[in-house]
């Protein structure tokens, strides 16, 4: 269906709602990589087979991930007039049982995780109810999402669609008011108004540095040049999170809409999405989504008759951590090795192919439709004054329930681990945690009450980064951990700056000799001096922060390092 006017969107929305709240049964299977890895593909086939066998009228749909990664494969069932029920883990062996219960109209209590009586489709307007009146007695034993630990403490603004809609159906995205923000921006707002909303939202980059997004856009908008680009950074090389992958696999249209709005605000007519080379499923779904948006006329020439044109291309990365750095990413997009460029000129002045370019993280761009639709001031109400909005946080390492959650900024790390992660899962206590990927500081358990916001984490010597949260339990050897993280940098340094290239190598050797028992106090002071030189002279954040893990381990776990040092006279 072609969308020529804003009214066409509501026609498509009606069509989409029929798919989401169907007259017959709808069964969805969480089919992001995390689900597929645990056999979601087979579960989907088994469901289809059983439904045919029982002669049921039901549609089986592959959807994305809702963050309950620990309970994969996840199956959700919506029967007409009844709440949506989430089951998990539904292995192939349990499928027959589940289908029998669906046929009988009774829930399979043993596997049921949570119940949704209604859907908060749109953040501001009234929720859409699945059934009317009282909840059947049989279902009341399943926890409702508003009382469920995992859901009630989250604030889903950006990831609200993930795991509910099918990523390969544009109608379902539109049913949840998708593309409405773009339509409104194009027809009712000037680019300056859109820009103002983004500045008002105080949104800061979700990728690492936390630079205010509005200022970046403004710099690009005022830069000279008629050709400008929007680049989405989906390199996601942090060795502990996969939430961008999960997001791209669950809700690719949100990114497309965000990029189109960014293009309108900045004055760009072309965009590139740079995706990590390992994310094969995400690439496929992204290509599919772009094709649909083009067919609907929501990408391409003269969108909604506004005169604004925007086209998107997807580029697959080559597998390099340094390509998460924006200028290295631009080089990689140009077919070169991912080496950071000197700044200035900043990408906003001279970026891709020498033209003014906005490079934003995927989560940042996916937040844009929410801001454009509901206003910057409304968005700024979430989170803390200097760190506004919500953040998707990926939990990994020693946690009972790894997965991702979206929480307002300012929440404490302790709350996240306890409410969502449910402890370490090994029976041991938390010893340390690391935020922001490998460049982040390793902080001790005594700092668990630290708030998740840009400034507090920076003060503690760490960073918010792209939202990874790695938990280490008491069995972790901190010196070994520092070695592992330093090895990571030695492996990933691009080789451009000598301080980084040589520095990480020497750091590796120093940690190695301490581990083997040859380390001296001299080693430590050399390491500290070298780290200072790297922070001063490296061209990009990779080199500047490469020594952070070792320095923070040294600071917070001195006994584990100094205990290994060679004593005088020994």
């Amino acid at each position, binding site marked *: 269906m072609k969308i020529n006017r804003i009214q066409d969107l509501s026609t498509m929305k009606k069509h989409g709602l029929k798919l989401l709240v169907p007259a017959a049964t709808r069964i969805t299977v969480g089919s992001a*990589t*995390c689900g*597929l*890895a*645990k056999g979601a593909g087979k579960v989907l086939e088994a469901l289809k087979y059983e439904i045919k066998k029982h002669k049921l009228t039901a549609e089986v749909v592959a959807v994305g991930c809702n963050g309950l*990664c*620990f309970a*994969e494969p996840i199956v959700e069932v919506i029967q007409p007039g009844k709440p949506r029920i989430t089951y998990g883990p539904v292995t192939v062996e349990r499928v027959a049982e589940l289908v029998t219960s669906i046929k009988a109209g009774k829930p399979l209590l043993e596997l049921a995780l949570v119940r949704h009586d209604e859907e908060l489709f749109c953040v501001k307007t009234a929720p859409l109810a699945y059934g009317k009146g009282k909840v059947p007695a049989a279902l009341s034993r399943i926890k409702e999402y508003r009382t469920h630990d995992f859901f009630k403490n989250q604030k889903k603004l950006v990831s609200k669609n993930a795991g509910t809609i099918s990523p390969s159906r544009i109608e379902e995205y539109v049913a949840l008011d998708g593309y409405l923000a773009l339509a409104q921006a194009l027809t009712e707002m000037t680019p300056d108004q859109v820009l103002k909303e983004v500045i008002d939202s105080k949104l800061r980059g979700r990728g690492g540095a936390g630079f205010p997004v509005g200022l970046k856009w403004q710099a690009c908008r005022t830069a000279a040049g008629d050709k400008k680009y929007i680049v989405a950074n989906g390199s*996601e*090389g*942090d*060795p*502990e*999170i*996969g939430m961008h*992958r*999960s997001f791209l696999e669950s809700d690719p249209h949100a990114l497309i809409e965000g990029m189109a709005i960014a293009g309108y605000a900045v004055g760009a007519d072309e965009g590139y999405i740079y995706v990590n*080379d*390992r*994310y094969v499923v995400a690439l496929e779904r992204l290509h599919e989504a772009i094709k649909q948006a083009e067919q609907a006329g929501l990408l391409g020439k003269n969108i909604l008759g506004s005169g604004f044109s925007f086209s998107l291309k997807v*580029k*697959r*990365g*080559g*597998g*390099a*951590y340094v390509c998460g750095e924006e200028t290295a990413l631009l*080089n*990689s*997009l*140009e*077919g*070169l*090795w*991912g080496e950071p*460029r*000197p700044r200035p000129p900043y990408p906003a002045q*001279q970026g891709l*192919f*020498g033209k003014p370019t906005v490079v934003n993280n995927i989560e940042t761009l996916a937040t844009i439709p929410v801001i454009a639709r509901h206003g910057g001031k409304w968005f700024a109400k979430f989170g803390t004054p200097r760190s506004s909005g919500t953040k998707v946080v*990926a939990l*990994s*390492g*020693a946690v009972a329930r*790894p*997965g991702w959650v979206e929480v307002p900024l300012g929440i404490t790390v302790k709350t996240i681990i306890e409410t969502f992660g449910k402890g370490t899962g090994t029976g041991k206590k938390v010893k340390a945690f*690391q935020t922001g990927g*490998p460049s982040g500081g390793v902080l001790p358990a005594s700092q668990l009450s630290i708030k998740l916001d840009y400034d507090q984490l920076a003060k503690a010597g760490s960073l918010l980064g792209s939202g990874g949260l*790695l*938990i*280490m339990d008491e069995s*972790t050897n901190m010196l070994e*951990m520092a070695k*592992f*993280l330093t090895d*990571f940098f030695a492996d*990933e340094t*691009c080789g451009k700056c000598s301080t980084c290239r040589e520095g990480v190598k020497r750091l590796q050797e120093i940690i190695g000799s301490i581990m083997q028992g040859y380390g001296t106090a001299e080693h430590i002071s050399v390491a500290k001096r070298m780290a200072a030189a790297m922070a001063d002279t490296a061209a990009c954040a990779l080199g500047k922060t490469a020594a952070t893990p070792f320095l923070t381990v040294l600071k917070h776990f001195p006994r584990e390092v100094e205990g290994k040092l060679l004593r005088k006279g020994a």
Partner: protein
Amino acid sequence: MAATKKKAIKKPEGQAQPAQTSAGAEWTGKSQAMFERMLQEVPEAMREIFRGKLMQVLQQKAGGGPFAENHVTEIVHEMVPEPFKTNILKAFSTLGDFDMNVVEEIIKANPGGPETVIAILHAIQERCGYLPREALMLVSQKKDVFLSALYRLATSYKAFRLTPPKKYAVTVCNGTGCHVKDGGKLLSELEKKATQHGSEITLETVRCLGCCDVSPAVIINGELYGGTEARAKIAEILHE
């Protein structure tokens, strides 16, 4: 800065355009790969002149028909002096088992300048399993990018490999999440097993597959396994 670097990688402009090797011609078997391999022995500065001359000889031999492998071999026997002759003939026998036409198709499907090469390398590796030297030479010629620049891409980016994979490709996640969950131990264990005599395993590591919930995560021939299942599967492979 970016501009000067680009210039360094691109070939200087004004140089004679490389002769079209495949204009109207049909290559059969590995003939094109063999032809390109033969040209490798010629110093880069003179390669394009030789290409044109040898192309003429090849056309004569084929007599208007498709180019066959034996035509190229004949040229080598008749025209190439030692020690290059032995080198080339030896190289022919170990030439990768892939179709040069596929590579040409891939290049055609990605029109544009040097910015398209990473996509092309991905596509070639998907079809051939690795990046054969002959394929890279063709990309270098068609996209006007130095072979050395392609070599840099192929060796710096972790996604590419220059040698054919063995029967079982095992990728172990070496991300922090998996490391904390004893991924390091699993990795060193598998490393030992993969280097065993006669092992059919290519072991690679990767930083985060994005499946932290099954950590330590291992991909064996495209299928994802958690730590325990992976150990069982590897044992099964080694038993074969």
